[in-house]
């Protein structure tokens, strides 16, 4: 196996990985003021570490998506009271009807989530609780990259055996 092949295969391998998308599992759906607010989290199941929180804000009448609101998120860990504040925006989301905010949840357990929506000078708030599982092992998150060398070694061994067999035959 030649080095440039390794490079090419690594590019192909790298390209197979996909980015974390917004959306994900519905964690909270509530009616507050004039809005229906749905909170999604990704990855599913939600675990401590970098996560993506996205929200769909709809008018209560007609369920039209609201696209011109300012959406603020406050997350508080119940065990340690550590708090994260973030502004969710449509620029950060794949689905442009959603407001997304990537945050890092530092610990597992129950987290209180508070959503504040500011629109036309009016303030609407909603709150709920989400369960966060313990952090996934980093090796588990990057298993594909760790498994890449052994996979290539096996492929190389098979290739050498095929060549050997051809030479004998």
């Amino acid at each position, binding site marked *: 196996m*030649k080095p440039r092949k390794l490079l090419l295969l690594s590019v192909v391998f790298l390209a197979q990985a996909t980015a974390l998308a917004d959306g994900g599992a519905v964690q909270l759906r509530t009616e507050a003021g004039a809005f229906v607010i749905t909170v999604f989290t990704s990855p599913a199941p939600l675990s401590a570490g970098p996560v993506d929180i996205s929200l769909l804000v709809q008018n209560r009448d007609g369920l039209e998506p609201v696209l011109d609101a300012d959406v603020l998120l406050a997350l508080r860990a119940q065990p340690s009271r550590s708090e994260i504040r973030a502004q969710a925006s449509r620029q950060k989301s794949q689905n442009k009807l959603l407001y997304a905010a990537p945050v890092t949840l530092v610990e597992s357990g129950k987290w209180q989530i508070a959503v504040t929506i500011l629109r036309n000078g009016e303030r609407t708030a909603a709150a709920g609780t989400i369960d966060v599982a313990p952090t996934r092992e980093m090796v588990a998150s990057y298993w594909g990259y760790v498994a890449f060398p052994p996979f290539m070694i096996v492929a190389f061994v098979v290739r050498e055996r095929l060549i050997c067999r051809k030479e004998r035959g």
Partner: protein
Amino acid sequence: MDPVAAAVLASWTLDLRAVCLLLVVASLYLRGWLRLRAELPHKYTAGRLAAFAGGLFALLSALASPVDAFGGLLLTAHMIQHLLLLMVAPALLLLGQPVLPLLRGLPRWVFKDALGPFLASREFRQVGRAMVHPVVSWLALASVITIWHMSPVYELALRSQAWHEVEHACFFWAAIMFWWPVVGVWPGHAVWPRWTMIPYLALADLVNTGLSAVLSFSDHVLYPSYQLAPRLWGISALDDQATAGAIMWVPGSIAFLVPAVILGMRALEAGRTRPLQRTTTRRSAVMRHIPAGKPWDLLRTPILGPILRYRHFRRCLQAAMLLLAGAVAVDGLFGPQVTPMNLAGVLPWTHWRGLAVIALLLAGNLFCMACPFTLPRDLARRVVAPRYRWPRRLRSKWIAAGLLATYLWAYEAFSLWDSPRATAWIILGYFIAAFVVDILFKGASFCKYMCPIGQFHFVHSLVSPLQVRVREPAVCGSCSTHDCIRGNGHQRGCELNLFQPKKLGNFDCTFCLDCVQACPTQNVGILTGLPGQSLREEHRGSGIGRLNRRPDVAALVLILVFGAFVNAAGMTDPVMMWMHRWHGRLRLGSMVPIMTAVYLCGVLIVPGILATACGWVSQCWKRETVTRKELACSFTLALIPVGFGMWLAHFSNHLATGWSSFVPAIERFLSRDASADYPPGPIPGWLPSVELLFLGMGLLLTLHSAWRVACRISEGRRRAVAVMSPWAVVAGALYSAGVWIVFQPMQMRGTMMMR
């Protein structure tokens, strides 16, 4: 436009990695198609190209367009995505007859050396034939569609991103298998008569119709996730499900029935299948004689080539670097002694190191090309010519290896990275040393025998893809002046005594391009070569001899390889805490003794013991003509890639996390304002993946080089495996250590201002 509609249409996510993959595939196809079109214009028409491009676009639309973004909220969008993956993309891709163009588009060595043994194997062909047998491919598609539309399995894909990707992969590859016999993809011949594809398609449509009917006429929501999802525009989950069923039914049936009709019409016209057999014969010839391509020459590229060939290009580059080095030294000596605020704390340790290793990976030894340290001595040599030759006894890498080990130790023991003033003194010391040595001694004695930075680049440029080398060896055969090494009236020759026709790899090459300028026939270029080729060769190279018989080079390599891991481990929390624990236990006044012990063991003693032990084990199976020294030196060279992988991972970590730090540091330097705000940069999420990839690639290249060395010095493959195994264990252990380091919390240690 209505803002909601605009938002929907804007919901594209062009994932860089997916786009890169599609671009690579498209380029390969285009390259192969152009080559085949020259030979078989009637087969490789513009229509084939358009079909393949359309297939790629359909694939991109399925994975990156709003149908993907809305797939979790609307079953209708998800169904459109599935139809693109099942019906549109695979059929269009196969209509492009992609096998031969993709194979011909690959570089020759990939096709022949890497894929050749697999493609030629009996098992591969049998599996391939079985997979596209109409019975197997029909069952594959039918079962994939049926199973993935069952409620629990579909829910699994909706809840888990990983399973969602598995679902899409199943759809796409099962569809490729299904459409293969329908389209009649070359190479291969029809197992069944063409008319049998009509019932084949009709039966598949029956399965599709059955599933569509279930979705359309069900009186309850089959997939609970859509019940929970917020409803958009007042569309109920049940209406959404019925619409999805209708989409699956009508366009899905059209996708099956239209090809069936076309095949039926063609079946009525006799003799249409004969040209396929003629093409099969022609194909074999087309694939057998793939011409060897010429290496790519950087100096012949349109814009960069003339710039690089410009006579004063290197001087300009060095002058720019000299100015930068001057600014760094001035700021280091007189600026604030706060690392992230000082140019001497930021530019050398965060940017220069990271960019230098990336340049080594992508091109070659670009640092030495732009080296500012040799510019003052070059200017001085116009007035004072050096009189002495470098002492014969010192013509080795031992001094450089000692200096390198000392530098690695001093870096950690005296926290050079955290001391702008010390950094400035190192830079000034470098200028003075280069000046003094090269004013006294002829040639590039400092570069070749002393410079630790140069040695770092010489060693690692052995795995770089570009080499300064001869374009046409035959032209050099008729050369009698040898200007490339002797120089001539207007241009000096190679100062490092590398005679171009006998040059081996990049070792000791500073990319100064003196040989390029001196060659009267313009026969020297910057050409692509196989990275790491010279690690496994035993030829004598001009100016360097046989690398695999030089213990000084082996020592240098061992210091660099193990230094990479010790240096990176020193940044991790567990290692730092461990060192501090020992510091406390031994009640030492300073950390220097601990650091000294760690570096002595990690960079000198342990590598020395390991190399000796591995050499001792390996010699039991080697050929008698190979000495133990040669064996150990050869395998030590093979360790370079895994060490380089660690340097890349380490320095790219600093570069990626602190790349923006130069802006405030330069602003402060120019304005002399020390009160600016320095926000920490975000740590990119892709960083661990890239670091692991660097390490993995390094390990694979190391193992490959070791295997080639083992095959060369032992008789038979079994003995080769035995000879290389101790070195493979060392490489594996280094790789494991590297993976462990990547997953540890890193201390940025002064390269970032933390709030």
